């Protein structure tokens, strides 16, 4: 398994997008106001995927991998799978405000082709985000120190909400949640206590 990205993703308004550059991005994605998407916590249209997070913060640790085979899912709470055509060879993962057609917050080069995008969510408990950590003390740091400290904290804190995206070449017959409950049904907050 080849890791191609590790760092924080900014999930403004509790969401981020995954799409192929030049595909029209979120243009065709509907809005979360539509009951079905808000309840599931995701939406996808073949060229873009929208995902809602559980936490109230905007910052989450994210790792992206290229994988030859179907990954294992034992340790994560939820797995979503979607077909994604990356004809441009550029995968974009972005908050909603920086999501342009050809560029976003995170831009990754991959071999052009059809992929199955597996999104693995860990520690999906409402409110289980970095606010439970050391933010009050961190706030005394300079902006640059704070940025580095938050990166370190997010990477280290394997007990809080975090995500992995695994790209596997090919297509899947089953899209949507293949492990985990529907988003708004939620996982009980005391599950991890």
């Amino acid at each position, binding site marked *: 398994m080849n890791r191609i990205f590790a760092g924080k993703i900014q999930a403004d308004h509790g969401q981020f997008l995954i799409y192929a550059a030049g595909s029209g991005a979120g*243009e065709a994605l509907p809005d979360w106001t539509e009951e079905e998407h808000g309840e599931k916590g995701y939406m996808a249209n073949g060229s873009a995927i929208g995902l809602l997070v559980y936490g109230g913060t*905007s910052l989450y640790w994210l790792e992206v991998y290229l994988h030859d085979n179907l990954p294992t899912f034992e340790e994560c709470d939820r797995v979503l799978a979607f077909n994604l055509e990356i004809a441009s060879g550029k995968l974009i993962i972005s908050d*909603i405000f920086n999501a342009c057609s050809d560029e976003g917050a995170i831009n990754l080069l991959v071999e052009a082709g059809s992929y199955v995008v597996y999104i693995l969510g860990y520690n999906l408990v409402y409110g289980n985000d970095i606010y439970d950590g050391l*933010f009050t003390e961190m706030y005394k740091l300079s902006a640059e120190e704070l940025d580095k400290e938050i990166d370190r904290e997010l990477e280290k804190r394997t007990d809080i909400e975090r995500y992995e995206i695994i790209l596997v070449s090919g297509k899947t017959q089953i899209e949507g949640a293949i492990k985990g409950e529907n988003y708004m049904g939620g996982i009980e907050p005391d599950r991890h206590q």
Partner: protein
Amino acid sequence: MSVHPQSACHMVEAWAGAGSENNPRGNYLPLRPHLVTIDRKGNENDVRRNASVAPFKCNSAIDDRDEYPLAVFEENKKKASIKCVKKKDNRGSGSQVGKQINGQNFYGATPNPYGYLEDGSVVEMVVRE
């Protein structure tokens, strides 16, 4: 914004200088602006903002912290009003504003005729019936 009534209501309250009672950034003053300046990069780099809203607690199973002006606008910096609103409302309104400033279509809203708006562009926030 009326498809997202709580976010719209918060916006109107913020214009009037109101806010939630336990808002750590202060209530009732200053008045928050209708005209706001797009600052995507400033938002992306402003991890301090995430820390600054931490003391403001909402029921995380139900609500998000809604900010006005939105974090993507320069006028947000240390001066935003914060209010707990339903997750669905907050996330839907954020998605709508994102699409509008990026020149993408959004159902039920007037398309932005100028397409993608660069950082530094000033936009007027309005609430539609």
